[in-house]
């Protein structure tokens, strides 16, 4: 019987002390604030396309950082961005459902443009210049290819065109050897599996 008492006393006392320490620690080390938003925002491609269901990259980053949104909704960022965010957040990667098309540019057929400025209002990065009743032009270097200007256009004069490949921007592909193909496959497998 004394054994039972001893056990009770020692374990109980220990539990009490440990519980108190924990309780105090919880009060003392409570932290607030979240620098995660900026980190996630930095990973996003900043197309501001809204395909994630948020009005821009930053709002999406905020939602993801708050844990309210999955990491796989950035279509232009594709697999790579998803993996980076998942890595940063320490969550399980998810497949990106939509495949991002090749980077594209919006192009205004100027002779059809009526100068309504609706596309200018829609552009999230101010890449369209023009004034009312004037032709609008898209600054190719600024266009993120988000397609947000296509829908508002009342005369459907905006096309999405493939981004022209520039000689200066050309870069060597991986060598066409078995080995590099294998490496490539493994990378994809890895990305798909994780």
């Amino acid at each position, binding site marked *: 019987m004394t054994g039972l008492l001893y056990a009770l006393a020692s374990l109980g006392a220990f539990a009490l002390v440990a519980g108190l320490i924990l309780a105090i620690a919880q009060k003392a080390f409570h932290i607030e604030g979240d620098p995660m938003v900026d980190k996630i*925002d930095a990973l*996003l*491609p*900043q*197309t*501001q396309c809204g395909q994630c269901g948020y009005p*821009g*990259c930053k709002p999406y980053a905020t939602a993801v950082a708050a844990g309210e949104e999955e990491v796989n909704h950035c279509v232009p960022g594709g697999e790579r961005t998803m993996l980076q965010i998942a890595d940063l957040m320490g969550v399980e990667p998810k497949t990106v459902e939509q495949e991002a098309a090749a980077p594209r540019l919006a192009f205004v057929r100027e002779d059809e443009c009526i100068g309504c*400025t609706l596309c*200018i*209002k*829609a*552009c*999230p*990065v*101010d*890449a*369209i*210049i*023009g*004034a*009312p009743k004037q032709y609008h032009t898209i600054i190719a270097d*600024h266009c*993120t290819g988000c397609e947000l200007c296509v829908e508002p256009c009342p005369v459907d004069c905006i096309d999405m065109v493939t981004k022209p*490949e520039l*000689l200066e*921007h*050309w*870069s*060597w*592909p*991986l*060598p066409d*050897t*078995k*080995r*590099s193909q294998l*490496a490539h496959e493994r*990378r994809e497998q890895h990305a798909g599996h994780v």
Partner: protein
Amino acid sequence: MPAMFRNIAQRLGMMAHSFPGGVHPDQHKLTGASPIEVCELAPVHILPMKQHIGAPCSPLVTVGDKVLRGQKIAKSEGYVSVPVHAPTSGTVVKIEEHPIAHPSGMGMASIFIETDGDDAVDQTLEPITDWQNTDPAVLRERARMCGLAGLGGAVFPTFIKLVRDKRFPIETVILNGVECEPYLTSDHRLMAEYADEILTGLHMIRHMVGASSSLIAIEDNKPEAIAAMREALANAGDLDNVRVVVLPTRYPQGGEKQLIYSLTGLEIPAGKLPMHIGIVCQNVATTKALHDAILLGKPLSERVVTLSGDALPDPANLLVRIGTPVRRLFARQGLDDFIGLQIVHGGPMMGERLKGPDIPVVKSTNGLLALGSDAMSAAHTVEQPCIRCGHCSEACPVSLVPNLLADQCRSDQFEKAEDYQLFDCIECGCCSYVCPSNIPLVHYFRYGKGQIALGRREQAFAEASRTRSESRDARIEREKAEKAARRSRVRKTHPPKADANQSSPPAKAADATANSGATADSTPEEKQ
């Protein structure tokens, strides 16, 4: 101990310094003794709008224009750029995209000139005979106007290097006559046949940059060139000012960094240029072209090209007008059928393999090789696993560890590759040359560099987009606030009527205006 040996060797005049690594490929200098032949004019010359490192040019002529030899037909768009000149007289027949010597096989806007056969020369540029007493800045402008770019293969605009800068006084001018690539002999023949002109060119450079000493570096496999240069020096009585340095043959001694190290033992710090350590390095062909530009008033419209390769029946050194189609040159030397052959633009170590012979000779074309499948297949057999033998790092002239770098590039670990100084790779090809596993190391490095550049571009673009988006949001916010302020002002002066119907339309209008973006200021509502 090695330092002691080096001192002794130096005293014996055998070698100055030895850069690490390097290889000794078979020389194949088939055309070393072939005098330069003047190549006939082609019926059509094709001139790509960018033949140098830097910004491309824009055409000055339109279809149907008559041009004269040496006439400027495209002007440079930017500082690092030089104009393009007509190689002969004729008519501009079209301006359109045409393949160039680029690994992508992509084309570039090019001016096509149909030769009229007169070869009439544009006389606008006066020769500057009294160059010794001419302001270096004038000479420098002449070099730019004449479209001079490094003819050794790098085609960096020459005038940029020929500058006097008080912060970096130039002490030494180095003439690069090393020509370490196998097969190529264009510089070799140029030195053998135009030693005097090159020497004059060298003095022009010295005058322009204010250098006190100069060296002419030639590898010991070109005795004829060495003799010719020495003779020219003796004739000119220049023996004290200029020294011919004979270097033991080793690839890539012709690389600027390696050559400077070989001659002086100095390293160019990363990210710096030779001028930062008081050195200007010019290729002998460029020097000859500078001589022609200043003393003869001739813009750059022709160059010496070595046509060679184990599959070419009749190798030769040709003086070729820029813009001449390559297919024509090969045909001239007896090669019409390219099946099973590989055509290389430049030397076998650093040149680009062409996708076809339908490209023109450009300023960087120092050689054109037709290689039989044997020679090529040795270089491009199936890649085997790396056995980490370390031969690549032994051969690397900049002391990288190529096999680790290749692993990193292959597996897209670009940050690590940058940490391992991927961008210090000069793509000389020594590592691939010695690799027993036939790993295309240089290819992996090019892939890595390209991907890193792509990443940086994307990063910069995203950054710019973010800034634009944020400033747009801020502007909309500001406009909204201004609107609200104005409205409240209006309300104060004209208190709203009790009727709700009347108060809502202006509010809607205000919202619409707030969302109107770039042209908000000029929307009709705003003007009311």
